[in-house]
């Protein structure tokens, strides 16, 4: 199967001016401008098949948004190949732009002073949509995202959540085959986040759309993505199933054991590992991955254990651990 998104050694280098703060440094910089190249994206490669929802993770400044901008045609890559639906994005051919969409949580695509419904109408003509198809899709989106009471208000009068829902509707009116979603739930309350998540899932299931999603909310990723791609310092460091992420990157496992005769305090457990919690006779321990088997044997030998479970740490902890690691450790 030909991948919908094909990225091979894609790189983007920015030339940035470095200077210290203060007036003196600013004046010095006028005469002697120090420039250096920053590799925002460094030889990143991956493929995405039709209908996949892939989470694109990385800390701030990792190169996620730059990659999305290259794939949506906003930026020209410095090197490498980026192809989407067989098109080269930066050529910005009409046939390509008509089949993809880019939603950026911090950017407003709707016309600020007039109701969203008027922006929808503009998209109808810009994307050359048949009137009946447009009405059908619009009504469907209005229904799914519960937009009826808000699309007739000027966009500037909408709340962030309402505006984001309208943004997503506007971005999907032309039924794009590829969705680049950059922090679509940024700043939204929990209910709005959940609604948008459910909507993306429905859209993907209904139209078989391919989705590349960045989000700082792990709940978004866990709810939507089986596969994640992680980039850090511009380099790809993981591409695989979300469930395997913890296995690959976590240095520890969590063991929960229910004891028949629980002691009064946790002092006796410190030899096994870090005590995470102790409640109702159940002890939770963080144990280095390589010691897991040995420590479980020791625990079972030394205590009367009614039940024991071994778990990977929460995905958020794993991601935090990866992002906190120095550049060298990851490469």
């Amino acid at each position, binding site marked *: 199967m030909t991948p919908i998104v094909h990225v091979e050694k894609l790189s983007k280098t920015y030339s940035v001016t470095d200077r210290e703060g203060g007036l003196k440094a600013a004046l010095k910089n006028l005469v002697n401008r120090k420039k250096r190249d920053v590799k925002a994206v460094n030889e990143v490669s991956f493929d995405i098949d039709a209908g996949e929802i892939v989470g694109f993770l990385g800390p701030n400044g990792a190169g996620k948004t730059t990659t999305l*901008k290259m794939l949506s045609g*906003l*930026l020209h890559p410095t090197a490498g190949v980026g192809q989407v639906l067989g098109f080269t994005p930066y050529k910005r051919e009409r046939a390509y732009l008509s089949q*993809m969409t880019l939603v950026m949580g911090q*950017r*407003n695509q709707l016309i600020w002073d*007039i109701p969203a419904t008027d922006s929808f109408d503009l998209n109808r*003509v*810009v994307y050359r949509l048949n009137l009946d198809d447009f009405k059908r899709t619009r009504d469907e989106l209005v229904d799914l995202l519960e937009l009826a009471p808000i699309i007739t208000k000027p966009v500037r009068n909408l709340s962030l959540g309402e505006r984001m829902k309208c943004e997503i509707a506007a971005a999907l009116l032309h039924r794009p085959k590829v969705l680049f979603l950059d922090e679509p739930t940024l700043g939204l309350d929990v209910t709005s986040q959940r609604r948008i998540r459910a909507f993306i899932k429905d859209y993907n299931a209904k139209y078989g759309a391919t989705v590349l999603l960045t989000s700082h909310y792990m709940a978004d990723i866990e709810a939507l993505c089986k596969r994640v791609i992680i980039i850090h310092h511009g380099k790809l460091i993981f591409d695989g199933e979300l469930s395997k992420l913890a296995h690959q990157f976590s240095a520890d496992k969590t063991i929960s054991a229910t004891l028949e005769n629980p002691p009064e305090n946790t002092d006796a457990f410190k030899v096994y590992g870090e005590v995470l919690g102790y409640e109702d006779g159940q002890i939770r321990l963080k144990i280095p991955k390589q010691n897991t088997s040995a420590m479980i044997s020791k625990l079972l030998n030394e205590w009367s254990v009614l039940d024991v479970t071994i778990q990977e740490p929460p995905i958020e902890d794993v991601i935090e651990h990866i992002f906190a690691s120095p550049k060298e450790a990851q490469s």
Partner: protein
Amino acid sequence: MINIYKVLIRNELLVELQYPLALAIWMLEKLLEPIIYLAVWTSVAVSQGGDVNGLTVADFAAYYIALLLVGHLTQNWHIWTIEWYVREGQLSKYLVRPMHPIHESITNDWIYKLMMMVVILPAMFLLAWLFSPSLQFDFGAVLRFIPAICLAGALGFLGGWVVGLSAFWTTRNGTLVQMYFLMMLFFSGRIAPLELLPDFMRQVAFILPFRWIISFPIEVLLGWIPQQEVMIGLGIQFGWVVALILLAMGIWQMSVRRYSAVGG
């Protein structure tokens, strides 16, 4: 494309109608400029015995009343908005759509200009009543004025667009824009009719595009240019429009390659 323009025009009207007071205040500023020039040149003419280089007080009145109309129809503010779009990364939303952003600029430009005619035309009549210009209605001149002002409008728009695109290189192009407006002020016939400039400056003015944006359409409207020369002038205007379209297209292609889509 007609369908796109229909919706763009409707949306632009809806936007402009949101802020009628802002438009009225903006318009007041536009009215002041020709009135100030008119007052200055009228006093110079009076102090010199009634005329300056053959231009009477009534001629100045006619010139600056016509400038009110021509200046309005050829002004360009996209020269500023392009910088803002580039600096703030706002251009991104236009680039991901299958439509060139210039179409929204064109619509915004003409809707605003047409709407403001509601204020401009009465203001012209008011000034005509106050300053008694040397105006004689010439239907032929009005007919010749129509292509001249359309080409001048296109020139003003394209000139602003081309200079505005410099923001892709400099990010803040305010100084360049100021320089453009300064040259426009002197070489277009805005600050004074070109007849009053020294020979050298007048010759430079004929080489640059500015004269074809302001003084040419004014002189056509006032019937100050013989008919055959009007045709040559229209040809020069057309040549400039074609040259600027090609230049704008070329620079645009280079510009989007440089776009860094900041933010987001």
